[in-house]
């Protein structure tokens, strides 16, 4: 095995090195997310997805890489741009589509919507539509994990834009003071909605922010899924062992606009082009092919399979019933 590129000073001690099966699984995970999102876009244009939706194309290596490093009883909080995290964690595609379509079979019965996919049984504790809003919740889950004493951890995913809001600050400080097993995973895609990071933050390397909390931190290529995995594995190991939280900055890029039909005209074409060349799925495919883990046909087959799976799941979801307006909503409000 070729030596893996170092993600940080610790990444050469990855606790659970990947097998080839793991690698194929990672590839499948990313492709699954991509094909799901592509189908969401098509479904959106067909009028099946309502209101708004925030696609994560381009970010697949972050969700797939981090979540691969987790155990089944770990907790994850994420955002309105959270389809990828849910799928990487095993959310059923049909249930996810049905939620986006507002149907009864949706993972939240159609009342949550695209921004709020939640599946507590998988540790998917919530998708937060208020920027930064999920981080205190991740801290709470981290405290829970610490108290339970079962080496669980909690992960809070968030964007670069979220690093400027108060909830972020309070969360990182509390996690550090209480030495909580929390991974703060910043998906730095350089934009908060339509505004580039340089307009809102004093620098582009958000890993710097962790210094203010004296928190362990690492910056990774968020388009390199194994590098993400390695960093998350190390951080998870540290957290499970009582070593406290880690800030992981994953440099990535969103391929599409912020939401819906945003054409993202505010981005420099050269920047877009440079990043599109670094598509995390293409990169990994090349790496796996170079390593002989997958061949071209094998990779194509996976893509075909998952594209078809997404399409079928969407079709089934589109056939699902609308939720009844006569149901007992108060029972959904109060337990």
């Amino acid at each position, binding site marked *: 095995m070729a030596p893996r590129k170092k993600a940080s000073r610790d990444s050469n001690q990855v606790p659970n090195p990947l097998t080839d099966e793991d690698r194929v699984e990672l590839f499948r995970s990313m492709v699954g997310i991509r094909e799901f999102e592509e189908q969401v876009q098509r479904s959106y244009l067909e009028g099946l997805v309502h*209101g708004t939706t925030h696609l994560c194309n381009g970010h697949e290596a972050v969700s797939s890489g981090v979540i691969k490093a987790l155990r089944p009883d770990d907790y994850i909080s994420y955002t309105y741009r959270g389809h990828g995290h849910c799928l990487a964690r095993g959310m059923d595609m049909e249930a996810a589509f049905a939620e986006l379509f507002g149907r009864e079979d949706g993972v939240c019965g159609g009342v949550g919507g695209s921004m709020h996919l939640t599946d507590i049984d998988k540790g998917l504790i919530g998708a937060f539509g208020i920027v930064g809003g999920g981080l205190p919740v991740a801290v709470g889950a981290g405290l829970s994990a610490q108290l339970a004493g079962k080496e669980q951890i909690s992960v809070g995913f968030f964007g670069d834009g979220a690093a400027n809001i*108060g909830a972020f600050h309070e969360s990182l400080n509390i996690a550090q003071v209480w030495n909580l097993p929390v991974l703060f995973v910043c998906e730095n895609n350089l934009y*908060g909605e339509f505004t580039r990071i340089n307009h*809102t933050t004093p620098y582009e390397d958000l890993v710097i922010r962790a210094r203010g909390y004296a928190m362990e931190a690492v910056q990774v290529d968020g388009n390199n899924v194994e590098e993400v995995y390695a960093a998350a594995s190390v951080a998870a190991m540290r957290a499970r062992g009582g070593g406290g939280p880690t800030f992981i900055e994953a440099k990535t890029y969103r391929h599409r606009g912020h939401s819906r039909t945003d054409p993202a005209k505010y981005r420099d074409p050269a920047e877009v082009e440079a990043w599109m060349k670094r598509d995390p799925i293409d990169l990994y495919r090349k790496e796996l092919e170079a390593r002989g883990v997958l061949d071209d046909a094998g990779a194509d087959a996976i893509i075909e399979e998952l594209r078809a799976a997404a399409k079928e799941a969407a079709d089934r979801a589109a056939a699902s019933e609308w939720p009844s307006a006569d149901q007992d909503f108060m029972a959904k409000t109060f337990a």
Partner: protein
Amino acid sequence: MATQEMTYREAIVLALQEEMRRDPTTLIMGEDIGESEGPFKTCQGLLEEFGAARVRDTPIAETGFVGASLGLSLTGYRPIAEIMFADFLGVAFDQIVNGIAKHRFMSGGKVKTPIVIRAIGGAGLRFAAQHSQTAESWMLSVPGLKIICPSNPEQAYLMLKAAIRDDNPVLVLEHKALMSMKGPVPVGTEDIAMPTGPNILRQGSDVTIVGSLAMVGRSLGAAELLKDEGIEAEVIDIQVLRPMNVELIADSVRRTNNLVVVEEQAPTGGWSSDVVADVVSQAFDYLDSPPARVTLPDHPLPYSPGLEDAMLPSPEKIAATAKALLE
């Protein structure tokens, strides 16, 4: 002054533009409002005309930039803060209720705090529970704050201009479902005054229907339905939620003897209860029926389109409620 047909959104843009031209101490802050001109395009052309010093893209930090508007107002500026979705008022809440609304009073009335907070709220666009609130009831009980709600392009224009000229903190609640509503706007109006109470939009003798924002149009729709049944509804736009002044509504009720209040919020804690309570105390003897309220149900708003539609007060439901009072 000329009347021009335009959308609610364009009326907002025009008001901002005219007032920013008029007074160099005005400036506007918000997320994605510069080059991108605001997610709802409510700041179209502002950066180009007024430059980056006065049209400021902020970090995602509502506490920070809303709070900054207090500092600006105390030192000679007239800041305008745009809150992209009214739901996000929650993250700036402390600065509004404990800071901005109280600062003049706590100083013994010695400082002025000319601040406008514009927030775009409301349901109907399938934005689900965290992006569909009008949110005014959160601040309805906060002394020191004015809250106004434009329900059409003319009001969007006039009210925003008045708010910018007002020497006090004004929360202007705009409704996202009204953004493309068209109507006549008295462009270039210079004689501007803050609205001090409600406004009668349709006269009628049988029942008074009061609404705000998107509920005004639905109330007017209900009036049409009622007309078909021979019932004449008077429709009133509440316009000003704070300080609340229901005299005009009480007057109307003295004529119609029946009251329906329509609110795009939960049944508890909203302004419709205040209207009922105040009208009852002012016009008790004139009421032929107990005032009725049509509100959202007492749970968060669901995402699914059919569900969202079923929750919102419809013209049919409003009309039926009014009719029931008259029976």
